[in-house]
């Protein structure tokens, strides 16, 4: 997908969480508020951002969405720009989604799997892959 700003990328992963019934539409604004308040600290590895806000009434169940950006976007991270993969994460509490995060850490620690996600030809293949490992 092509977006031209970090905000647009976060809006997109927020829309995906809402579309899959994991959050209400308000969660996107909460993620954007985190960016405004704390900066792009959630760009935690080269090219990889994990946007999220704190558990709130906007979260209906824990969820993870992903936008792979055809055109890398500057988030303002000193070490890890430009961003090519933006995850959206929502959780109802501090513990319910730990297994998914553990699986995600394994995937993102492995260059081969990161390259697969970056170069997959369509969203269906990415979804199928992540559903099988998370």
């Amino acid at each position: 997908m092509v977006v031209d700003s970090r905000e647009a990328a976060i809006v997109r992963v927020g829309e995906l969480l809402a579309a899959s019934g994991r959050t209400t539409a308000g969660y996107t604004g909460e993620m954007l508020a985190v960016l405004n308040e704390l900066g792009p600290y959630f760009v935690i590895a080269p090219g990889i951002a994990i946007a999220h806000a704190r558990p709130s009434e906007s979260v209906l169940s824990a969820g993870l969405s992903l936008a792979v950006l055809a055109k890398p976007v500057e988030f303002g991270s000193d070490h890890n720009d430009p961003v090519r993969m933006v995850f959206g994460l929502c959780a109802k509490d501090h513990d319910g989604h730990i297994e998914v995060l553990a699986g995600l850490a394994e995937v993102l620690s492995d260059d081969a799997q990161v390259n697969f996600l970056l170069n997959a030809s369509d969203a269906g293949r990415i979804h199928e892959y992540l559903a099988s490992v998370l």
Partner: protein
Amino acid sequence: MKIVAVCGMGIGTSVLLKMNAEKVLAQLGIEATVTAADMSTARQLGFEANIVLTTPELVPSLQGLPAEIISIDHFFDLAELHRKLSAALL
């Protein structure tokens, strides 16, 4: 040894950091408890912790804690965690 992994919200990035820090501590043979925390919780826990792990952007907000603050650029690079934790602990 008490270590706090800190992110803005305490549900995402700090949890990932905690997981990889635990892996590296096990490799180093260091007994430590690692807690994931958001910023405000971290300011409380940080007074009891030996080490605070976080991202470069959040370091300024954590200054003033007695713990040693280590900033991690690449959360999934175990070599970076290994290098920085062993420099602080060994």
